[in-house]
């Protein structure tokens, strides 16, 4: 039987506020345990929540970016369950009336644009962390993270493959960073994903029974976990079994998903409106303010790159995938005054390669725009060849010298003096009479040999165009 996969994602993005969603405690990552858990975060008797304005603005910003309805009136609800990392015994979330309604996002996969629906996005508080290192057989609880604002972004079940799911997640990741509402740091858990996965026979209308996979904290894991789960469900169905609706945990070490029984016990969350909080009313004035603050969004930027720089779809997509990359590219074009094509080739080629090899983000690049512009200018004005430029780039990566300083110190300036080149060519011809004879006898392939010899004699510094031209004349 042919099976079709159906995937919906729930993404939790930690909002980049300074303080928590309902208290004035810091949200900074990495503090000593429980030093950033105030009386409110700890759920002390008598404390009350007050909503953080920035969290609301960020949610509105996100909603506008995905062209969603912003609820004029939204409500916080209590989601009740007992867990040690949940101090109040309920999580303040939104249930029936979320702040962001229906919106959508476009993903580009294999040259095709696909629209993925976003059902809703709602504000909620994060829980703390349980640490399972052994404290005499007990679990330690750190509540620093408790109360950090989250935007939970729920997609429609619109994705049909793990690859699409990853593309959607990447797009969302780029978007929240464009909007500067989330730092996107997946190692620190700032951007997390739960995947709802089901399969159904191709052609069937109704969805199959789904499972929810938790704990997906990298793009790679999302892809692997979904692929594993799809296989597992198909195996179950093909061997005559039924898929059980349940929560499953992805174990990256074993590359498998397994049932999380602990979550099954109490899924009667008894949502009801939180009486400590009043309805959130979003006035048009706030929406206008936020709209004015919206940066150019990835899709708009991609289209602009295509028309302004003559990029093809692929290049424009890669360059606009993150705001930092796009900014780097545009500053590079501006500072170097070079052709956009030369700039994009270098950003996507040497620079991206080196960053990738060293697992660095472009924002942490050892070579900033200014220095790279200096290098590209020397290519453009023929001071060095592209090949030598790569050598200079390596040097620049290691230290802080400018391209000019390296070219000068290492004497890498291209030889464009035709007299000097001519002398070298004459010498090469004189030293290789046999090859000259063969070449003149019709062995055209040997031309490359002569170019090589000349370049070798000049340590690559001769202008290759000049060398070609003169060699052709001399060997006629």
């Amino acid at each position, binding site marked *: 039987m042919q099976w079709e996969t159906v995937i919906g994602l729930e993404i939790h993005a930690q909002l980049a506020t300074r303080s928590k969603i309902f208290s004035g405690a810091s949200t900074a990552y990495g503090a000593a345990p429980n030093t950033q858990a105030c*009386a409110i975060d*700890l*759920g*002390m*008797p*008598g*404390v*009350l*929540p*007050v*909503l953080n304005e920035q969290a609301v603005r960020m949610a509105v910003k996100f909603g506008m970016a995905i062209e969603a309805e912003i609820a004029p009136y939204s409500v916080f609800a*209590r989601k*009740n369950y*007992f867990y*040690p990392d949940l*101090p*109040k*015994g*309920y999580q303040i979330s939104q249930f029936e009336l979320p702040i962001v309604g229906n919106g959508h996002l476009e993903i580009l996969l294999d040259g095709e644009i696909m629209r993925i629906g976003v059902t809703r996005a709602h504000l909620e508080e994060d829980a703390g962390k349980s640490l399972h290192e052994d404290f005499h057989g007990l679990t330690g*609880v750190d509540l620093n993270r408790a109360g950090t604002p989250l935007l939970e972004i729920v997609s429609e079940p619109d994705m049909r493959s793990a690859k699409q799911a990853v593309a959607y997640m990447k797009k969302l990741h780029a978007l929240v960073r464009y909007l500067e509402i989330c730092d996107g740091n997946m190692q620190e858990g700032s951007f997390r994903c739960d995947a709802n996965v089901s399969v159904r026979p191709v052609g069937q209308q109704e969805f199959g029974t789904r499972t929810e996979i938790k704990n997906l904290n990298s793009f790679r894991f999302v892809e692997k976990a979904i692929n594993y789960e799809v296989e597992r469900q198909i195996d179950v169905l093909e061997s005559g079994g039924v898929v059980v609706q349940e929560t499953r945990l992805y174990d990256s070490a074993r590359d498998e998903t397994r049932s999380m029984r602990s979550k099954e016990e109490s899924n*009667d969350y*008894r*949502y*009801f409106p939180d*009486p*400590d*909080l*009043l309805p959130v009313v979003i006035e048009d004035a706030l929406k206008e303010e936020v709209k004015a603050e919206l940066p150019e969004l990835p899709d708009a930027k991609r289209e602009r790159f295509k028309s302004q720089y003559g990029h093809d779809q692929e290049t424009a997509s890669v360059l606009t995938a993150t705001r930092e990359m796009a900014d780097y590219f545009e500053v590079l074009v501006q500072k170097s005054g070079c052709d956009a094509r030369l700039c994009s080739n270098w950003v996507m080629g040497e620079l991206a390669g080196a960053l990738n090899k060293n697992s660095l983000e472009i924002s942490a690049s050892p070579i900033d725009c200014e220095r790279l512009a200096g290098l590209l200018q020397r290519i453009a004005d023929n001071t060095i060849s592209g090949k030598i430029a790569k050598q200079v780039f390596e040097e620049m990566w290691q230290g802080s010298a400018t391209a000019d300083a390296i070219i000068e110190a290492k004497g890498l300036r291209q030889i464009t003096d035709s007299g000097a080149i001519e002398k070298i060519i004459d010498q090469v011809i004189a030293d290789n009479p046999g090859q000259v004879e063969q070449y003149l006898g019709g062995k055209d392939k040997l031309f490359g040999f002569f170019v090589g010899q000349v370049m070798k004699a000049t340590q690559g510094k001769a202008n290759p165009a000049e060398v070609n031209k003169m060699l052709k004349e001399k060997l006629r």
Partner: protein
Amino acid sequence: MHNKSIAELRRGLHSGEYSSQELTRVFLDRMQRHQALNCYITVTEEQALEAAARADAQLAGGKAGALTGIPIAQKDIFCSKGVKTSCGSKMLDNFISPYDATVVEKFHDAGAVLLGKLNMDEFAMGSSNETSHYGPVRNPWDADAVPGGSSGGSAAAVAARLAPGATGTDTGGSIRQPAAFCGITGMKPTYGRVSRYGMIAFASSLDQGGPMARSAEDAALLLQVMAGFDAKDSTSVDRPLPDYTAGLNEDLRGLKIGLPREFFGAGLNSEVAARIEAAVDEYRKLGAEVRELSMPSLQLSVPVYYVIAPAECSANLSRYDGVRYGYRCAEPADLTDLYTRSRGEAFGSEVKRRILIGTYALSAGYYDAYYLKAQKVRRLISEEFQRAFAEVDVLMGPVTPTTAFGIGEKTADPIEMYLSDIYTIAVNLAGLPAMSIPAGFVGDKPVGLQIIGDYFTEAKLLNIAHRYQQVTDWHGRIPQGFE
């Protein structure tokens, strides 16, 4: 000294007739002597004497605040930093609050001296003070009768002159009903008028703190300090605070009083009814116009309340889990055992009943039938009050169907206990201000008159209460043995 009003005590302190330390001593001694009433859970003697010494210095230096040197007592539901705040529960018997409630802070800033923390029904759930982990409080008018609840310790302490004034909280009548049973003056302000920050939550959309004192004038002085906007409470109302004593003597001629027929139905004890009617007559003499009106949905306030209050409480009390503070059971086998036993061993049966009913009302499949339905009827009740206030200025009626009942008399049947709050609950559902003032006696037990106003009419209610207290002396009566 202990029979003087707060206003009189202020004058005595300012004129140097006596010091705050002397005054505080008087009350500490009385508290000691009348321990049998069981009003206080914690006596903060040392801190009180220190605070009194500071107050005396301030008084001498001419830097006195509104209540500088006046001893007061807090219901043990208000968190007070460095002091045990038990909420009447075994769950918090070991809880030394790490912070001050806004109300506590305000009294502190006004210069008041904290005498101690007052007994109450566990987590404010009860109408008789019998659900307290610390045992029942006795009614100063009759040691075998309950003082009412949940602010039973507050009412009894004020009636017995063990504090000139106290705080209470009112979720379904918990200030007004004990005030009525103990013959004192209590006010539940408009929801949002007094900050709930640091006031341990029972039912968040109903809870409201308020003053309990011997007279309307004293209540006004206390409310002046307690009330006001608080940025830490999202449900606090940001609106100017009137001067609550300025209008106390305003003339009542032309005041329109409404008597809801439903408050005078079959359940009302006839002698209590007679006292209420007499009080209303007194208002006629003061120039008020009285008319009857009908508010049929008031009948539904008890069932609405017993969905909403338990639902909210079931979530509010989930934080007591034996992890970060409070009671933890011995040697929990696993996480579920930690939760179930800690909560099972430390909550009393009334608290458990309410958590259970609330959990049930919110659980899958029942939410619409119970919680949502109750919220809708709540609106009908609230709208009915608004229709009434389009016709009259205030509503009057009894606070309770009977005078204080006997200790143990209603503990066997929780429903009968719930029904004793029939006249007070609707006010909380609507969030309105209301008072209970002494209006006579049946036998030797006091009767309370309830006065209900529209939103933010606290000053008017105090004025209405004060004028009555100018022409009657019920509020000045002292229970035997506490003179």
